C-alpha cells in the first residue's frame, strides 16, 4: 500500500476558503451573479414540497449525523489496536491487521455494504440459534449492517494512519519513559498512545469529512437517512433537480460545520513540538 499518511489528508476538504480580504471589486460582481443564480433557482424551480417534508428531512439529517459520529468513534477505537498491531504485534497479528486494512481499503464501500446486508445478513436466519437469540430483532433491521460497514471502513483507513502515528513517536521519548522505570503498559498508556493520538488528530478532520460523504450509501440498504428522504421526495414529486440541489446544500452545510468545529478544536489543543 502506499502508506503515506499525508496523501489522504491532502485531498480531503479540511479548511474553508479564507474569509480575510473577502470583499474585492471582482468578488462583488461574482457575488451578484451568484445571488441572481440563487434567486432564479428559487423563483423558477418548484420548492413548494419543502414544508411538507421538513420534519422528515430533519429526522434524516439526525440519522445521518448519528451514523457519522457513532461510526467515527467506534471506528477510531478499532483503529488504535489495528495500528498498534501493525507496528509491534507478533507477526500473525501483524499480517492479520495488514490484510484487513488492505482488503477494506482495496474494495468499494458500496460493495462491502451490500455484502454485509444482502450476503451475510440473509444467511443468519438459516441458523435457528441466531433467529431465536435476543440479537434477532436488531439483525432484522438495516442500520446495524450500515453502521458495521461504515465502522469497518473508518477503522481500516484510520488504522493505516494510526500505524504511521505509532511508528512516528520518537524512540527517545519511549526510552526516557522506560528509564523512569515505567512498565510496558504504563509507557503505552502514558506516553505512546497519547503521543500517537495527538499525531493522528490532524488527519481526523479529513477522515471525518470523507466519512460524512460515505454515509448516503447506507440508503441503498433501506436505512432512512437524509439521502433516502430526498430519494423519496424525488419519487413522489417527479422533480429531477430541486431535491438533489437541496441535498447538496444540506451536505455542504454539514461539511462546513464539521470543518469549522474541527478548526476550533485544533486551536484549543496545543501543538508545540511535532
Amino acid at each position, binding site marked *: 500500500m502506499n502508506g503515506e499518511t499525508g496523501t489522504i489528508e491532502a485531498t480531503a476538504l479540511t479548511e474553508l476558503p479564507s474569509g480575510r480580504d473577502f470583499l474585492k471589486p471582482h468578488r462583488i460582481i461574482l457575488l451578484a451573479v451568484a445571488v441572481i443564480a440563487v434567486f432564479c433557482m428559487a423563483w423558477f424551480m418548484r420548492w413548494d414540497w419543502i414544508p411538507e417534508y421538513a420534519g422528515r428531512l430533519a429526522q434524516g439529517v439526525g440519522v445521518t449525523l448519528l451514523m457519522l459520529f457513532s461510526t467515527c468513534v467506534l471506528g477510531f477505537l478499532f483503529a488504535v489496536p489495528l495500528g498498534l498491531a501493525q507496528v509491534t504485534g507478533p507477526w500473525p497479528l501483524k499480517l492479520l491487521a495488514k490484510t484487513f486494512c488492505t482488503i477494506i481499503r482495496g474494495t468499494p464501500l458500496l460493495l462491502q455494504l451490500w455484502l454485509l446486508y*444482502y450476503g451475510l*445478513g*440473509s444467511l*443468519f*436466519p438459516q441458523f435457528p440459534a441466531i*433467529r431465536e437469540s435476543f440479537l434477532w430483532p436488531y439483525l*432484522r*433491521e*438495516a442500520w446495524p449492517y450500515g453502521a458495521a460497514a461504515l465502522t469497518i471502513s473508518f477503522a481500516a483507513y484510520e488504522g493505516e494512519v494510526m500505524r504511521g502515528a505509532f511508528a512516528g513517536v520518537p524512540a527517545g521519548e519511549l526510552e526516557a519513559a522506560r528509564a523512569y522505570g515505567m512498565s510496558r503498559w504504563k509507557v503505552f498508556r502514558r506516553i505512546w498512545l497519547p503521543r500517537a493520538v495527538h499525531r493522528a488528530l490532524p488527519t481526523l478532520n479529513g477522515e471525518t469529512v470523507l466519512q460524512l460523504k460515505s454515509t448516503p450509501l447506507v440508503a*441503498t440498504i*433501506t436505512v432512512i437517512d437524509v439521502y*433516502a428522504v430526498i*430519494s*423519496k421526495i*424525488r*419519487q*413522489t414529486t*417527479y422533480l*429531477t433537480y430541486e431535491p438533489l440541489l437541496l441535498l447538496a446544500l444540506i451536505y455542504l452545510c454539514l461539511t462546513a460545520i464539521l470543518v469549522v468545529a474541527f478548526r476550533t478544536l485544533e486551536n484549543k489543543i496545543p501543538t508545540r513540538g511535532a
Partner: protein
Amino acid sequence: MKTALKTIALAAVIGFAGIGGAMAEQIKVGFAAEPYPPFASPDASGNWEGWEVEFMKAICAEAKLDCVVTPVAWDGIIPALTTNKIDMIVGSMSITPERLKTIDFSDKYYNTPTGIIGPKGAAFDATPESLAGKTIGVQVATIHQSYADKYFGGAGATIKEYQTQDEANNDLAAGRVDAVQADAIALDAFLQSDQGKDCCEHKGNVKDDPEILGAGVGVGLRKGETELKDKINAAIKAIRANGIYDTFSKKYFDFDIYGG
C-alpha cells in the same frame, strides 16, 4: 516525462471521443436495470430476456423503429426520460394520474392485480387491519410503494423500500420483512422459484384503487411526442390483432395477461 504527458493527452482524447457520438436517430428504450422476472431480467450471458423484452421487440419491429435497450436505474427512470437520456420506458410502469402529470403514456399493454405474499403459516391477509404492526417490503418508486404508504402505512405498518424486487423478496425469505407487496405475476414467479417455494405463500390481492394503482401498464413517453405515441399505440393494436402478442405471452403465462 514527455511520453508520460503524451499518454495522458491521448487518454483524454480517447475519453472525449466517446462523448462525440452519433446524432440521435435511434429510439433508446429504457429498461429498469434491476431484474424483474418474469418480465425482464439479464441472463448469465448478459442479455435481457423475459415477457416485456419480447413485447418491446415485437413493438419495435411492428412500428419499424430502431430500438436500443438502455438499462437505467428504476428510481431514476422518469428523470432519465424527461432529460432525454432515454426516449421511452418499457418497464412495467403503470399508468397513474400522478405520473401523467410528468410524462405521457401509450395505451395499456398489460394489467394485473396487486398481491401480498408472506411466510407460510403467518396469519394475515391483504387488508390494512391484519397488516397493522407488520413490516412490508416494496420496491421504491412503484405504485405498490404509494399504495402501501397510503393504506398500510396509515394503518400502522412499517414500509421498507428496496431498490429491487429481488432484494425485497430475499429479505422476506430471510425474515427481515413480514410481507411483500408487488405485482401478482412477479410475486408468482418468486413463489415458484426454489427460494419462494420453501418459505412463502400468496396471502391475497389488495383492494383496487385506480387513483394509485392505475389502469394497466403502458409505455412511458415524453409529453408532446404524439407522433411516437401514435406509432406505439398502432403497433400495440396490430400485435394484439395479428396474434403475435398471444404467441409470446403463451411462453410465459397460462392466462390472458392483457386483462379486462
